[in-house]
Every structure is written in C-alpha cells, then in structure tokens.
C-alpha cells in the first residue's frame, strides 16, 4: 500500500460491487491504473474494496460497461471531513470561539494588587489606574507598559515617592513607597537642640525643653537653642531632670552662591513630526504591517513599544511592535545680557532650593557682582533664607555647661 496519509488527504471511498464478473471488472480497473486496495469478498458475488476519490468518475464509466452493480458505502478522508465540518458549522464556530475566549482571557487583567499603601492612597491609585485603563477585565493589549504606568502614577499622585509596577501573568503588582512614612520613633534619650548654622532667629516653636534664645538673637553654629534640662535652676544646673528637647527654630541664614551661565544654549527639541510603523513579530522576525518606507527625518529618536500575547500561561512567539520615529532638531537659543542675567538668577535659585530642606524659603536675594565675558554670565548672589536650624545633640550625663 502506498502512502495512506496522502490518500486520506485526497479522500478514500469504499465501494461495494455485486454481480457477475467482478474479477474481470477488477482486472480492467487495475489495467487502467485505478489503484484499488483492501479487496475483500463477502460471500459469493459481493466484493468490497477501497479506492481514491479522484478515480470515482472513471469507475462509473467502467461500471456502466460491466455487469456489476456498484455502491459507495463509506467515505473517508479530508474532503468528507471538510464537508462534515461545514455541515456542522456550529462545532467549528464553537471551537474557534473557545480558542478566542481563552486567548482573550489570557490577555486580560485579572487582578490589581497594591502593596504598601494606606487605604486613602490605595483608593487614589485605583482611581488613577482606572483612568488609564488598568482595572479588572481590561485587555492588556490596550494598556501601557509597566514603566508607563509607573511614570503616570508617580506624576499624578504626589503622595507617592516610588511605585514599582510589575505584570505577572494576568495580575499587576504595585509596590508602593509613600512619602509620608510612618513617624519616626520618638527619641527618648535626653538631648538639646543646637544651631546648625549661623543665623538670626525669626521664629521659634518649642514643643519640649527650655528655650535659651529669643527672636532676633544672632546665633553661632553649635550654640544651644533649646536646652533639654528642665525644672528649677538647681535642677537645671545639676542636669538631673532632662528631657529630649523638641521643636523647630527658624532662622534667617545667608548663602553666597556663584553661578556661571552661558548666553548661548543648544538643546534638542522635537519638531512634533512623527512617523509610526507597525510590525508583527513572528519569533524574532519582524513583519511590517503598516507604515512602509524609509524614515524621512534627518535627526530622529526612536521609541519602541512591544506587546506580547499570551495563551494561558505561555507567551506565544507572536508579538506586536509599534515604532515611533520622532523628528528632532537642534535648537540654539541666544540670550541677550538682560535675559542672561535673569536666567542665571533663576538657575541659581533652583540650585539653592535643591540643596535646602523642603520647608525652607528664600526671603531675599542680592546680586553682589555680575559680569558678562566670553559669552558667559557670571553672577554671585547673596541669598537670605529662612530655614530650620535646630539639630539634636544628646546630653551626656554628668556633663553640664
């Protein structure tokens, strides 16, 4: 027998012949190249055999010439299978629908888990996530990358310091670090508050301890601002009744900063023109789907966005990529002297703010010296800043001032 699978693909028919001269009939068939096989005899004058579907037409011609009667009793093979599938289309539709549903469900968000956030922040995050489409039952395909979600959340919720977004299977895990951390455990060892820098006291707020300075006093670094020693004078001297001094002492402090700022500034900016190409990747082979042709821009930046598809827990090797080419250009800005100085001042202000605490404010600034040479503005500025200068210093027993 030849390759049964090939025959199966073309279709196999079981024929029943009855009548006289069956042997002669079979001889004529074989001589004319109609291949038959599995010839079985069922009693006298009845023989069944199998043959190819393609040969059936020729079989009919020979059957007419002979005295035999032929019947087709069984149809097997791909063409009949196809027919049956078409007839029972519901099954096929069902099977396809099943696959599609499994595929969809595999690419859905089933859970969003937020860890490390207090209820209020969690609620805010949930709301924000819903806004960008990250919620139960949404398709992952339309959701931004985890990095994008991370950026969006940190930009839009100011309570968050950092959020880690991870997609594991069908669940998004968000690990949150909040800015308002739980309050530090109280310091219970007795201490004084001393000055960190020199400055002039403008405001005091003492929670515990004995203030040693008054508003408008000038203090030197290391000077005691709030003493931890309490009680009457004797006790204070002996240092027997000590408490951890707490409070904030705001003082005007002075900074001198020197900045250099170029009058000519080049920066890379996007022109707003962009070109998007879409690909479907089969394994590592990208197949362009939309957006053909070369990128027209001279200078551009490329952003790639890859979406993977999953089937159940497996990632199928087909993915979708969109590449965005953004045209960029060098922009040179030249400031005149006045603008340059203004920019330099702004720059200096930002630089000093970065160095200071959050609750420090700039009270005033004076330009001490300004010069424009070699295309650069050199400024030295004197800043008056109001900040908390109190710093804890533990009191060591027996050591009194």
């Amino acid at each position, binding site marked *: 027998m030849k390759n049964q699978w090939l025959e199966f693909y073309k279709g196999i028919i079981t024929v029943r012949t009855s009548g006289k001269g*069956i*042997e002669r009939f079979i001889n004529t068939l074989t*001589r004319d190249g109609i291949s038959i*096989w599995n*010839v079985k*005899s069922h009693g006298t004058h009845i*023989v069944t*055999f199998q043959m190819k579907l393609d040969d059936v037409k020729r079989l009919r011609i020979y059957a007419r010439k002979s005295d035999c009667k032929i019947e087709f009793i069984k149809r097997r093979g791909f063409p009949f299978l196809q027919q049956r599938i078409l007839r029972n289309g519901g099954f096929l539709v069902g099977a396809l629908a099943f696959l599609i549903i499994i595929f969809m469900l595999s690419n859905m968000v089933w859970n969003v888990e937020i860890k490390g956030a207090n209820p209020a922040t969690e609620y805010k995050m949930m709301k924000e996530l819903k806004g960008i489409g990250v919620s139960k039952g949404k398709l992952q395909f339309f959701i931004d990358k985890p990095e994008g979600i991370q950026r969006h959340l940190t930009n839009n919720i100011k309570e968050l310091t950092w959020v880690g977004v991870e997609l594991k299977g069908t669940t998004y895990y968000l690990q949150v670090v909040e800015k308002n951390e739980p309050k530090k455990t109280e310091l219970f060892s007795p201490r004084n508050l001393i000055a960190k820098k020199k400055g002039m006291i403008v405001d005091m707020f003492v929670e515990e301890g004995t203030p040693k300075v008054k508003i408008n006093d000038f203090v030197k670094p290391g000077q005691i601002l709030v003493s931890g020693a309490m009680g009457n004078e004797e006790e204070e001297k002996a240092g027997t009744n000590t408490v951890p001094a707490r409070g904030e002492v705001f003082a005007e402090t002075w900074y001198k900063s020197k900045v250099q700022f170029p009058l000519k500034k080049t920066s890379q900016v996007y022109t707003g023109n962009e070109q998007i190409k879409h690909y479907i990747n089969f394994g590592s082979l990208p197949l362009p789907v939309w957006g053909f042709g070369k990128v027209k821009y001279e200078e551009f930046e490329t952003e790639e966005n890859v979406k993977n598809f999953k089937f159940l827990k497996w990632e199928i090797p087909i993915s979708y990529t969109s590449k965005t080419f953004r045209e960029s250009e060098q922009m040179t800005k030249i400031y005149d002297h006045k603008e340059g100085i203004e920019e330099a001042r702004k720059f200096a202000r930002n630089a000093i703010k970065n160095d200071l605490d959050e609750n420090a404010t700039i009270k005033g600034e004076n330009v001490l010296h300004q010069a424009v040479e070699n295309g650069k503005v050199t400024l030295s500025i004197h800043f008056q800043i109001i900040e908390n200068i109190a710093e804890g210093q533990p009191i060591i027993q027996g050591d009194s001032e």
Partner: protein
Amino acid sequence: MAKKWGHLLRSWMTNNMELPQDVMMDLPRITMIGQIHIYIENHRGLLAFSDKELRLLLKQGQLLVKGNAFVIKTILPEEILLEGKIDQVIYIK
C-alpha cells in the same frame, strides 16, 4: 517453430549469462511471508476471488491459492499482495 526457438534462446541465455529467470522467462515471482502474506509478481489478471480462494492467470497456466480470510491488500496490473491464512499454492497447467 519460431516461438520455440525464442524460448530455447532465452532459456540458454538465463543459464549461461546468470540473468534472473523471472525477468527473462515471464515466470511469476512469488514471495511468501510465513502463511500470512503472499506477494505475486508477473501475473496476468484475476480469474476468481473469494475469501477462501484466489485464482490468477499466468503466462502459462494458472495459479491457485487456497486458504481463508483472504484480503487483497494491493492489486496492480502485474502485482498482487494477498493477506490472510494461506494453506496451499497450486500451479494448474
């Protein structure tokens, strides 16, 4: 007369030139695997077939195969593969 001469020539050639006899003399070549398979080449057509008997036309005479549960697995113009339980293979003049 001429036919007989030709026959003699062929017989002589097969004897002296070591050529296979089935090719030269149009004889059937029968291969059997135990009792279950019989493969016959160089037949000249089916004469009778039932599940107990197969009769084949040869160039000279006929071949009768007896047994039971016969199934012709393949049949081609000059070849036939028969399956079943073969009891006897008989040449009929």
